[in-house]
């Protein structure tokens, strides 16, 4: 047994400049309990007056060891934890986990399930962007947008509750398809929502897009170039706001995204305002996808018929002995996956969201790695904030759209 690790001040000195050691600049702690850090993010700021000299993010306050837990669970049971990672993109997390497992065991998904997956993922993207719009505008002191945006987000959460029974932690998408088919009132609810939102979105835009105060706080702040984004592995709206139309839905289509007609919005400024424009335009494109998915929703099964991986329908359990055995084996042992590692990725509201799953021949994974966009995007905080005011820092954090659950896992 050794003694407790001690942290020496000398080990941390290299993080700040010489001027901080002489007291010329001030060190200030921001967070982890700070309303505008969107969760438990801690920033160590080095300030020259009100100007940020350096900004050192400190993460890990929401680390819950999900990856370690998943290694101890069977493939179906581990899925429940994916919701808890990026808690604003729950359906997307389920989708990418299922895509990775399906790739690992080579499992097909019926067309109806594919379409519902796309539809719900896009609704979740809209919900996430609405929440982002409300909270980041609130950080810049535009309070009313927050209240309106939450109202529309609630409609999406109601739809999720309708299909899965849970507002946020749905676990609705399962390896091989869906948990069960959508209820009859689903189509009407979605149609109602996509009729209402475009008009409401215009209203929100009229509150922000040409608002002089909003422009003053966002234009030319937190600028990053395409080259820097690629160098630092930044994806999602932050990258697209620099002018590169890189979107995994087009670059490496999954779940049949190649069949839908939509554009990838870009902007050229690379600043907070460009990110805002990109996200608002993305909501409109997502609405286009939802509309198309709703129009073409095919009939048919929502689960693969491969009983090795997918449990039999509930109705068969009372009549078929095989079904009982299959069900029992799936929920006690799980299904085995071959040795080898696969990587599946989707475009989450924040960027590239991926799962690396390595099978070892048994029914539990050897390793699950979650590539969260927030972890990658948060790393450029020092780059974005140097030379700006502390007040702008709040806008910059909001514009990257961080979710600490996604970052710390």
């Amino acid at each position, binding site marked *: 047994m050794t003694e*407790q690790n001690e942290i020496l001040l000398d080990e941390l000195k290299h993080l700040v400049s010489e001027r901080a050691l002489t007291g010329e600049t001030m060190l200030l702690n921001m967070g982890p309990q700070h309303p505008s850090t969107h969760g438990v993010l801690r920033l160590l700021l080095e300030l020259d007056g009100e100007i940020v000299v350096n900004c050192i993010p400190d993460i890990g306050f929401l680390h819950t060891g999900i990856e370690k837990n998943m290694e101890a669970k069977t493939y179906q049971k581990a899925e429940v934890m994916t919701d808890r990672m990026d808690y604003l993109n729950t359906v997307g997390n389920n989708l990418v986990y299922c895509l990775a497992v399906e790739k690992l065991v080579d499992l097909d998904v019926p067309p109806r399930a594919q379409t519902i997956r796309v539809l719900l993922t896009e609704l979740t993207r809209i919900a996430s962007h609405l929440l982002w719009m409300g909270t980041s505008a609130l950080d810049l002191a535009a309070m009313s947008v927050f209240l309106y945006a939450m109202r529309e987000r609630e409609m999406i959460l109601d739809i999720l509750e309708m299909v899965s029974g849970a507002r946020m932690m749905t676990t609705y998408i399962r390896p091989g398809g869906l948990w069960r088919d959508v209820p009859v009132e689903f189509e009407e609810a979605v149609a109602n929502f996509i009729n209402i939102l475009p008009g409401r979105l215009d209203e929100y835009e009229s509150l922000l897009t040409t608002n002089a105060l909003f422009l003053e706080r966002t234009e030319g702040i937190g600028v990053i170039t395409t080259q820097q984004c690629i*160098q630092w592995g930044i994806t999602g709206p932050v990258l697209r706001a620099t002018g*590169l139309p890189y979107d995994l839905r087009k670059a490496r289509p999954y779940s049949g995204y190649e069949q839908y007609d939509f554009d990838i919005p870009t902007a050229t400024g690379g600043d907070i305002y460009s990110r805002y424009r990109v996200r608002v335009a993305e909501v409109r494109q997502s609405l286009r996808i939802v509309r198309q998915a709703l129009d073409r929703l095919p009939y048919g099964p929502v689960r693969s018929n491969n009983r090795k991986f997918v449990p039999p329908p509930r109705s068969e359990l009372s009549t078929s002995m095989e079904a009982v055995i299959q069900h029992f084996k799936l929920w006690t042992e799980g299904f085995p996956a071959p040795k080898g*590692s696969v990587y599946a990725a989707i475009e989450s509201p924040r960027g590239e969201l991926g799962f690396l799953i*390595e099978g070892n021949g048994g029914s539990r994974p050897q390793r699950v790695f979650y590539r969260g966009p927030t972890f990658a995007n948060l790393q450029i905080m020092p780059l974005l904030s140097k030379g700006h005011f502390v007040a702008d820092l709040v806008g910059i954090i909001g514009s990257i759209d961080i979710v600490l659950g996604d970052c710390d896992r």
Partner: protein
Amino acid sequence: MDAKLQPAVDALTGRLNVEPVEFRDQVSLLVQPDQIVSAAQILRDEFQFDMLTFLTAVDYWPELAPRFHIVYMLYSVPHNANLSLRVPLEGNAPHLPTLEGVYPNANWYEREVWDMFGVRFDGHSDLRRILMPADWQGHPLRKDYPLGYEEVQFTFNAEEIDLRKPYARE
């Protein structure tokens, strides 16, 4: 194999000691630890693999040779292609050169691997823990680190429970 990857894989197998592996249309190259920096440099400068999507590790304990695989996922924006590199590492306290000089975002990912697996990256500019508290003992994602539940420690039984937790005071 994807035709876009073929030239890069051919060049690397010709010039360095690497071995391609393919699984579910996904190409991985097994690279020796001392060659990882030059492999990444060749891929970035000559074959436009300009983005490091992520970097992580896999633990194969109780196997010791190799015990770890470090997995690098590279992406090429112009070619729209993914290529992964895997570095096998032996023993319980392995180390390999950092990739920070080639891909700056390796910084946080390498800190995460050090934090979770205890793999050292030589030449890293700031190799501190990133997710776990700074005074934490042990590396949680190692397979010999128990998952177990935590007994709640109160003042009266804190020391008694500590005795049953060898990993807490290793």
